[in-house]
């Protein structure tokens, strides 16, 4: 039965640090069995744990549909590397990548790198926004059809379909273009936890998915409306944005799982959010209860889909695949004749 406005469900799979791939793959497959849109994996340089993006790249080939959203920090890292790594996660997962933008705000984290001092949240989130911006520009720096493999002229790519980013921010600059061709989703999904004021400002400008905390559905709804309005004020379409409530959960029994389903249904029916990001207290105990207890109840009430209708994370979220900004701006007609020619030569198109 079709769902009028789909409910989006995601879960965090971090917790006690683990270093074996099997642990994470089992959790991802479990979440996939529950048809969740995506899993997140938290990360920080400040406490024990493996690199989250690496873990989800390791998980990607063993899974088929689940979206993969590692936390990636933007403070002490290189924006060019971050952009390349997230794009590569999208390639290896065939269009299932996202990243949760995060900052490193402590003196202890600064000391691990020794390059700059700790800075206030406002500055760090401003920079995180610049990193999100430059990452998107780098993903667009190759037009989708930049690879031409033109034997006659001996050209593997058409250099006119590659673009410099020439980005200069407050703390870094990036010349571009990317070294990684435009990823399958065009832009992997950018997720920002918009709970704090500084983070929310970055979220309304750059995020595809905004996570919010709220104690009750009315607060959540107000929050969602505010985020949609502010995104619109930045010239963005609010319908190309999903607001998910981050909900800490602790389940011990099947009855708890049904209770969670009721709460989700209740909030959802009050228009509190586009969906929920569940943060289990103990992922190995709670996630099976969510998948085998909460999900079936939501499906029974036709609030949650029973299968993945699409292949990419953007498709799960109902978000359009963005057109490359440089391709869109290039003079009309330049591509038109050659594009038709290429299509004739390669009717299947490049995947």
């Amino acid at each position, binding site marked *: 039965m079709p769902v009028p406005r789909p409910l989006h469900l995601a879960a965090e799979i971090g917790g006690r640090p683990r*270093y074996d791939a099997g642990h994470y793959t089992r959790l991802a497959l479990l979440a996939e069995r529950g048809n969740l849109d995506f899993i997140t994996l938290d990360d920080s340089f400040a*406490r024990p*744990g493996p690199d989250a993006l*690496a873990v989800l790249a390791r998980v*990607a*080939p063993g899974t088929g549909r689940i979206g993969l959203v590692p936390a990636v920090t933007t403070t002490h890292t290189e924006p060019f590397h971050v952009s*390349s790594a997230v794009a*590569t996660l999208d390639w290896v997962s065939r269009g299932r990548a996202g990243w949760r933008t995060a900052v490193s705000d402590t003196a202890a984290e600064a000391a691990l790198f020794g390059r700059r001092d700790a800075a206030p949240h406002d500055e760090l989130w401003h920079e995180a926004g610049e990193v999100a911006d430059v990452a998107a520009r780098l993903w667009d720096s*190759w037009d989708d059809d930049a690879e031409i493999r033109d034997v006659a002229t001996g050209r593997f790519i058409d250099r006119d379909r590659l673009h410099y980013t020439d980005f200069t921010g407050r703390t870094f600059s990036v010349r571009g273009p990317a070294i*990684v061709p435009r990823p399958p989703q065009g832009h992997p999904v950018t997720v920002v936890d918009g709970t704090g004021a500084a983070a929310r400002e970055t979220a309304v400008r750059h995020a595809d998915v905004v996570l919010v905390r709220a104690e009750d559905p009315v607060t959540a709804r107000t929050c969602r409306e505010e985020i949609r309005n502010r995104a619109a004020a930045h010239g963005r379409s609010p319908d190309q944005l999903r607001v998910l409530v981050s909900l800490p959960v602790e389940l011990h029994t099947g009855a708890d799982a049904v209770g969670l389903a009721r709460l989700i249904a209740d909030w959802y029916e009050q228009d509190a959010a586009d969906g929920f990001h569940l943060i289990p207290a103990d992922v190995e105990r709670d996630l099976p209860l969510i998948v085998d207890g909460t999900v079936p109840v939501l499906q029974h009430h036709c609030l949650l889909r029973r299968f993945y209708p699409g292949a990419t994370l953007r498709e799960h979220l109902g978000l359009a695949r963005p057109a490359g900004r440089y391709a869109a701006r290039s003079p009309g007609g330049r591509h038109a004749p050659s594009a038709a020619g290429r299509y004739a030569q390669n009717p299947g198109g490049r995947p």
Partner: protein
Amino acid sequence: MHLAAHFPGVNSTTVWTDPRSRSQIEFSSFEHLARTAERGRFDFFFLAEGLRLREHRGRIHDLDVVGRPESITLLNALAAVTDRLGLAATVNATFNEPYELARRLATLDHLSGGRAAWNVVTSSDAFTGENFRRGGYLDRADRYTRAAEFVATARELWDSWSPDGSPSPFAHTGPHFDIAGEFTVPRSPQGHPVVIQAGDSDEGREFAASSADVIFTRHGTLDAGRAFYADTKRRLAKYGREPSELKIMPGVSYVLGDTAADAQERAAVIREQQVSPQNAILALEQIWGRDLSSYDPDGPLPEVDPDPGSDVVQGRVGVADPQAVAAKWRALSREKGLSIRQTVIETTGRQSFIGTPEAVAAELHEFVRADAADGFVLVPHLTPGGLDDFVDRVVPLLQERGVFRTEYSGPTLRSHLGLAEPVWKG
């Protein structure tokens, strides 16, 4: 004998015009080559790196390496579809920071069950620096002092957890890094990921002798290989290391045929495809440092001399003495009556093993027997099927000769390479 497989980028090595050539970026291509290498019981799979698209005459170079994934992320994914194959990432020590990279490499080692390797490279060009926070660049001498301190610092971080799993704080102060805190990843299955060093320079050899497990090199002949081998192995003693603690692995290509003549014919066709008319002029421009696009690739070499102050090529290490190279090319061209394209075909390209599977197996064996190499990094010219015939036809012959394993003896890359786990220096 040790064997590794390189995933070729798009350049004058790869024949992307071949109908069998597939994607340079889809995961399935990497999966195919890695699985083939593992089927052949190779030691490791090797990825190069590029941090800025090269430029030629001020424009993006559309005939050179263009488009590739980020290595460590890709290798983590390949860890899921292989069981034993070592996974080697080339990562620049100039445009990364020790804490973050040590953490990413330790994570790869954990998630692959002890199969991670790091090929340490450095960069000296401001051109690449334009993509990074630190911008600028390091002069040649500083590149190696930074790289050496980088590797030493990474080792301090990897040793900051004891083998029994308890962490200690670390503090490192040196000319390039002043960092302190706690490392987030326990000691990994190999203790330290395998460290590979690429390059033939004197500084490179010294750096490899002091701290690398493998040196990735190129040398043209058996004699040159033996000289390099002897020189590099001799340097180990002053660092208290045994000759067996550093494996020397040149990057080589190969062409197989049913007969010697058949193989030579195939090799000639491949070289013609690799050095297209466009690539021939580009190769010439890289030496001459001038716009030579008006020259006929099938005509004679230019009479004009190379421009010593040229910046025609960006993002690639230039030749040290273009005048000398030009003189050599002219002499060769005159002597044999070669065109521009024929001269480029004659003078470029790596050490190639060309012949029947039996002849190639024998020649590879001879290099190892004669102390010219401990093994090879094979650079196929086709993506991703370029290693299939080697694994099907040459590997069994090497196994029959008893010079290459028929099964992996252990789970980790160190075990494949016969390298001990580093002693913990907590």
